[in-house]
């Protein structure tokens, strides 16, 4: 079976002067089209570095990333990123922030009117069309992240990369946004790779959970299939034995077998 996205023997080492720190060691992962995969691990295990390598923002020391059997090693809109701290440009309005990517990606394939409609379509998907003329400083953190998601979706990426997208949000907003992302995934069938440190979030959203060992030289410790039917409902899952079992497995991995030694 052909993998859609393939992380092939990725090593990553940072060197400063003579000191070399190996962050990632021999990471192998294949992701099917339409699959939702989460990478979970303690902070400092290199999961964000891994996402940056897939995004092309950081180069791998060895190995590489294959998307539809072609190597990718520079950033591009086919692997759009939703950044942890939204990274909207504060001098542009919500609409302009989304349009920035749309204008570049569809400069030759869509007319001006079509691009405008496409921007609005994507803002509608995340229910942010009402704030299109606001600046990022005028909307809440959850809304900013929605716009960040719209900006990434609007580039029609082959893989959507989420870098702890809900990490900076309060619990209620986070739950709301997780439901939105689930609904979008259901509707659009995107291939999604998400970094998270939240066990519930990983189990709720993912088809597979990739658990990373602690760094340095972090590896993939275990990959867990989440055999829960979609669409998933947050409330129903709370008592679902399958959900609880998955949750238990991840917790055991993180807190028994690979406890975060530096955590005081």
């Amino acid at each position, binding site marked *: 079976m052909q993998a859609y996205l393939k992380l092939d023997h990725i090593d990553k080492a940072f060197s400063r002067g003579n000191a070399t720190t190996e962050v990632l060691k021999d990471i192998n992962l294949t992701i099917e089209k339409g699959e939702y995969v989460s990478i979970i691990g303690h902070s400092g295990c290199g999961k964000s570095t891994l996402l940056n390598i897939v*995004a092309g*923002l950081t180069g791998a020391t060895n190995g590489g990333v294959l998307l539809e059997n072609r190597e990718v090693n520079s*950033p*591009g*809109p086919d692997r759009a990123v939703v*950044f942890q701290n939204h*990274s909207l*440009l504060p001098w542009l309005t919500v609409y302009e922030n989304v349009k920035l990517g749309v204008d570049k990606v569809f400069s030759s394939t869509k007319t001006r009117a079509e691009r405008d409609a496409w921007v609005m379509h994507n803002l509608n998907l995340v229910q942010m069309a009402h704030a299109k003329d606001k*600046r990022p*400083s005028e909307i809440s953190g959850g809304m900013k992240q929605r716009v960040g998601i719209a900006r990434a979706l609007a580039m029609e990426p082959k893989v959507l990369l989420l870098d702890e997208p809900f990490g900076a949000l309060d619990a209620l907003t986070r739950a709301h946004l997780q439901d939105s992302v689930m609904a979008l995934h259901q509707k659009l069938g995107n291939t999604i790779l998400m970094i998270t440190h939240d066990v519930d979030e990983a189990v709720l959203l993912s088809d597979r959970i990739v658990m990373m060992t602690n760094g340095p030289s972090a590896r993939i410790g275990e990959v867990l299939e989440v055999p829960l039917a979609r669409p998933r409902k947050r409330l129903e899952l709370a008592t679902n034995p399958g959900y609880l079992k998955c949750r238990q497995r991840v917790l055991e991995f993180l807190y028994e077998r690979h406890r975060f030694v530096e955590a005081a």
Partner: protein
Amino acid sequence: MTMPAIKAEATAVAIPTASPTSAAPVVTMTPKQAPRAEKYVKMGKEIAVRVVPPLIVLALLMLFWELVCRRTGSTLPPPSRVFKDTKELILDPFFDNGGIDKGLFWHLSASLQRVAYGYSIAAIVGIALGTLVGQSVWAMRGLDPLFQVLRTIPPLAWLPLSLAAFRDGQPSAIFVIFITSVWPIIINTAVGIRNIPQDYRNVAAVVQLNPLEFFSKIMIPAAAPYIFTGLRIGIGLSWLAIVAAEMLIGGVGIGFFIWDAWNSSHISEIILALFYVGIIGFVLDRLIAGMAKIVTRGTALN
């Protein structure tokens, strides 16, 4: 029992214009539809709060100056003398009797013109060089030490050299303005470019902006607050430098006007010119600050 009654009366008398006691409940119930008159009163109060204190200080200073310089044998004229001596210059700034015998308007506009040329060139060159130094580590290593040395040279020290090079007063003065105001613009722009958050660079990389788009859509807006700090320092410095430079090159210009007044012992004219120089310097600074406010309205980090 009589005391509270008197008290209430006293407060009512003390603030008769706004009568807040009767208006307050109305305002709290419909805060967005405050009566127009009240709005004007409020606006007037706000303006008064800003304008009255400096006016009082100014009046006191004038009084002090008048008292000190009124005595016979004082070296400087009191304000009343200054006004009497310079009345014609104040009332008719537009006369032109040929040569250097011109109204203050012409002197000031000549100076402003030089500043406009020199400063515009400095802004363009400064932002361009600042971007280069901020973006490229090698450019910074090569150029930054040079800038740090050159920027400490006093403006007037450049004047003889530029006179030797251009052999004319006008371009030399413009060059002095340029070389004075370019350093803060370069240095602040470079700092602004260097401080562009990695996030914005990542966004640009994912969207695949080309270098030109990156410059205009990310760099300039992101660094705008820093750039305008540099521009504001620059305009102040150029206005400082032009007066000094014009004293030496002669011809037309407010600096020369001051020097000429000194040579003819018209002390009152010097004082009037200083007043104008101060006001225009202030206006120039406000102008750049206002521009910065408009341009960077969205750039504040959130």
